[in-house]
């Protein structure tokens, strides 16, 4: 069998691009397949947070993975920036989740404690910050804000530029980015995979499915199952304003370019990505309660994206038993986990076994489903 590539990565969003970038490092021949201009593209609608504070609540391996990736992010950013010349705008000043009532704050306290108390979870540096201290750090916080949960590992970056940098870096490392290449069929052969799309066939030794919700369709072709659901997230961005907010919040942050991003509703509306005004109006209301000075800012754009949710909300990394060499990679935190994806996960895929990622196989979901 002819072999065009050692590895083909399907999906050039943040997850696929980070893995492909990592795989291309060791001199492997790697291709990265992307869809057309109007694809679902969660990577265009993410919130650009490197976020730790309550990730993995109820599933310690996810808290540990998140912490590890957030810890690797700084050196990852340096490496990518040095290689590509793209400024990722990464900052890790710690992040906040504001509470607008004592009940909300109590809820935050409980979750922080529960996450930290899970076995094996390293010190996350998270704590509750009461209003007086919060106001000294963020004087613009509104009068209704009673306090916040804080985690020193939280940060954010410029995610569109991260995507550009990963695509550029991947190319500089010798990878082939193939756009407008929707994958139609994948056939597992004796020593690799034949991938057919848009009238072109590619042979690759390994295949990584990082196509987000597209994995629902692709996974069964290599004996895997991707039980994913779209979860709509709505976003707002304001005009550029002078810097006033030097910490990211879980649902509000100022980008390095000056715009204020406001997120992030949770709507279970299937594959509809249209922007819905009433939802946006509610987000605007809450944003003004968090930061009254935002009232006068102009909204230039609102849009929606689909988060990629597994049944329990945690990542799914799995190698096919039926077709070894085929890997499934799904998560909804492509920014936070980018450092781990480009590092540990790419190495594991390169090695051909997912040792160290066993907790994220689909086995847990099958067990849960059986119960």
């Amino acid at each position, binding site marked *: 069998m002819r072999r065009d590539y050692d590895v083909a990565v399907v999906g050039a969003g943040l997850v696929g691009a980070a893995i492909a970038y990592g795989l291309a490092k060791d001199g492997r021949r790697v291709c990265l397949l992307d869809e057309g201009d109007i694809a679902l593209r969660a990577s265009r609608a993410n919130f650009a947070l490197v976020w730790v504070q309550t990730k993995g609540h109820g599933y310690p391996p996810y808290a540990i993975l998140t912490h590890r990736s957030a810890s690797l992010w700084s050196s990852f950013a340096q490496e990518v920036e040095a290689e590509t010349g793209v400024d990722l705008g990464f900052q890790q000043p710690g992040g906040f989740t504001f509470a607008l009532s004592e009940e909300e704050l109590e809820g935050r306290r409980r979750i922080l404690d529960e996450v930290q108390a899970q076995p094996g979870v390293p010190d996350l540096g998270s704590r509750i910050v009461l209003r007086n201290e919060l106001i000294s750090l963020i004087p613009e916080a509104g009068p209704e804000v009673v306090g916040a949960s804080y985690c020193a590992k939280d940060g954010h970056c410029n995610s569109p530029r991260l995507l550009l940098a990963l695509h550029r870096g991947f190319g500089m490392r010798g990878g082939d980015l193939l756009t407008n290449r929707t994958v139609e069929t994948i056939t597992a052969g004796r020593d690799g995979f034949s991938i057919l799309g848009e009238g072109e066939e590619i042979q690759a030794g390994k295949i990584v499915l990082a196509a987000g919700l597209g994995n629902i369709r692709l996974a069964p072709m290599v004996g895997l199952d991707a039980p994913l659901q779209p979860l709509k997230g709505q976003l707002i961005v304001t*005009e550029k*304003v*002078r810097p006033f907010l030097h910490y990211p919040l879980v649902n509000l942050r100022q980008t390095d370019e*000056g715009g204020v991003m406001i997120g992030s509703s949770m709507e279970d509306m299937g594959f509809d990505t249209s922007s819905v005004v009433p939802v946006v109006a509610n987000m605007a209301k809450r944003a003004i309660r968090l930061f009254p000075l935002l009232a006068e*800012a102009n909204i230039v754009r609102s849009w929606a994206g689909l988060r990629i949710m597994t049944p329990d909300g945690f990542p799914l990394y799995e190698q096919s038993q039926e077709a070894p060499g085929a890997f499934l990679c799904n998560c909804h935190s492509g920014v936070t986990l980018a450092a781990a994806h480009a590092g540990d996960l790419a190495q594991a895929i390169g090695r051909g076994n997912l040792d160290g990622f066993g907790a994220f196989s689909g086995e847990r979901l099958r067990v849960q489903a059986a119960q």
Partner: protein
Amino acid sequence: MFKRLSEASGRVLSFTFDGQPLEGREGDSLAAALLAGGVGVFRTTVPSDASRGPYCLMGVCFDCLVEVDGVANRQACMIPLREGMCVTPQRRARQLGE
């Protein structure tokens, strides 16, 4: 510079731009009154601080942005001139909460 044709009439309205007193006519958009008053640079851009003035005068280019009576980033071409307006150039990004 722009000159006003002699047949053009209309009540004179006074306003200020960057502290300088200017006069326009009733019926002018703010952008027209500023141009008539010899103002060429309305704003500077956020990315590079480059000078800009009106380009389209029909509300689509967003290059005539000014601050009007304390409200930032307003399209001068879409606002009718009013007596006593206090107008300043929009210098780069606005400051919230001023």
